[in-house]
């Protein structure tokens, strides 16, 4: 069995069509979607590149955080006055109209902080796709990072060069330029 090799092809920033076409041709060569990653300096939607839909756990983590925030708010608002009851301003100890403020604020705090935690956790969680990067990508190049069997190398290089990929790097491990 031939070992996979990681390739990084860089397309100029105004050639998104070529990059999308390159992905289609790689599919025809047998390179699967899970072995391909597009790296770019601006976000391109999945539809533009003909890629499968990405998904993220961030919304689920955000909702969970909101629920936790809401529960903490309810505990604080309805629980703490009972621990050491002090009647203030002739108001009842537990008042529903004012509870909405505290519950709203802590629910939103939970939602927003957990959204950030979700982004942070997913950022530091190891991923299993091909690893590679070039600093030219932040300068506008569209990077096509994929791993393919080494016996396809020549065909892949020809394909990418024909479509205008400027540089094609290769590595057996992580490709970091």
């Amino acid at each position: 069995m031939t070992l996979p090799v990681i390739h990084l092809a860089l397309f100029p920033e105004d050639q998104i069509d070529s990059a999308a076409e390159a992905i289609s041709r790689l599919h025809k060569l047998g390179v699967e979607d899970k072995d391909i990653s597009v790296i770019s300096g601006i976000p391109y939607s999945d539809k533009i590149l003909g890629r499968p839909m990405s998904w993220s756990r961030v919304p689920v983590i955000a909702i969970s955080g909101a629920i936790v925030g809401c529960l903490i708010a309810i505990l604080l608002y309805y629980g703490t006055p009972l621990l050491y009851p002090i009647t203030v301003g002739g108001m009842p100890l537990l008042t529903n109209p004012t509870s909405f403020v505290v519950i709203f604020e802590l629910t939103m705090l939970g939602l927003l902080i957990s959204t950030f935690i979700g982004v942070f956790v997913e950022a530091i969680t190891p991923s299993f796709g091909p690893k590679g990067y070039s600093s030219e990508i932040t300068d506008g190049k569209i990077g096509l990072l994929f791993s393919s069997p080494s016996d396809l190398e020549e065909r892949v290089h020809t394909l990418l060069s024909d479509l205008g990929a400027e540089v094609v790097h290769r590595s057996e491990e992580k490709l970091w330029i």
Partner: protein
Amino acid sequence: MAAETRVLNHAAAEKSEEDHREHLMLDPRPRETLNRWVMEAMLTTTPRYWIMVIVLGLLVAVLLFGAWGNQIAVGMGVTSKTRPVFWVTYITTFVFWIGISHAGTFVSAILRVFKAEFRRPFTRAAELMTTFGLAAGALFPLIHLGRVWIFYWLVPYPNARWLWPNLRSPVLWDFLAINTYLLSSTIYLYLPLIPDLAMARDRTTGIRHFIYKILALGWRGTEAEWHRIRTAINIFAFAIIPVMFSVHTIVSWDFAVSMVVGWHSTIFGPYFIIGAILSGVSAVVMILAVLRATMKHMDYFIRKEHFDALGKLVLIFSLAWAYFFYNDFLLSWYGGDEALKRVITFHAEGPMAWMWYLMLVCNILIPAVTLWNKKIRTSPWLMFIITTLINVGMYFERFLIIPVNLSHQRSPFDWGEFNLTPTDIMIPLGTLCLFLFLYLVMSRLIPLVPVWEVQEGQMAHTLRKVGKAEVTSVSELE
């Protein structure tokens, strides 16, 4: 004849091409060029910049921390707080800063939700204003405490005193709301900054490279990363808007829940919010005018079209503010409550009447007379002057609501004066210097323009022919 026609057509085509290039979204440059310009703007400092940083730093040390330290050592008697005016410039300036902080969220979140493309180059400048405005404003509850060393009594945690904060108090709601807004705004500033931090990481060395590398969280720009960050930004954009509305509503409830004459009004919530957005958007215009004039290459990113768009918004909010002001004023005047009528008469005829009229001139008359004119709206320095006057007017509005109202309550025997002390003036000025200092320093630490958003917008904008005209077409790339 044919030659004349050719010359006219060429001139028309040139004019058309020039007109389009006036718009940032129709004047794309290579990404490498945009990155270089933003990095040059960030890394370039002049002797004038350093002089300003040093002067502002010294002013913060003396005006803010020096005066505050003196207040802690000597006591609250160094301020003008005395019966019946217990809230003077501290609370006024607190409300002012919280109001200023609404601009970032408005520009960054609301305009993002409504897909207003003109927001792209200055969302970060506005978000930075929010963060530092909140930081300046959040100092005032601490300053106003007097005994600042017991501020932790506000934090709800089990303690040996068996005491919990009173969660039915608007002051506690303030504590929760402002902290929520501050944390959320800081994170909302950080999330869209990550791709630009990665760009800065790739273009710097040494300590800067190290710090950007950590903050960029290993960003490469993969599809998964973009999807994750866009999802998070969209969640923030939608969620931070109600937080923004709640914060200033809760600040208004500091006044409205009380029975103080002139404060106990149901319209205070929306009235304060509109005032906050007016002063906030005006402050954005002020900052953009300064950035454009002082930072390298900013004239490419911040153009007259942006001042034009923001000018229209300022006009709309000024008219909305006038509507809410008149609502509050008319019902106070019409209602027949003697104490309330005396207060509004005191505003218009008392010793601070000049402030009341100046407020109306700055907040209503000047915007209404000037901002309908496109030539004025597209002049950065005229817009700077107009929006500065609006912010002066908005500060006066809060001053009139707070200490002036308190000095003239129900019982004539209890009417009093306030005589501002140096501490009353130094500390608020100190927070202004702190805001400017933090902004100046941060403008050289992070890329001030979200390059990826600008380029995304430029990609989405094209010109197409409809009939005989070339019109701008905006694609939905997301």
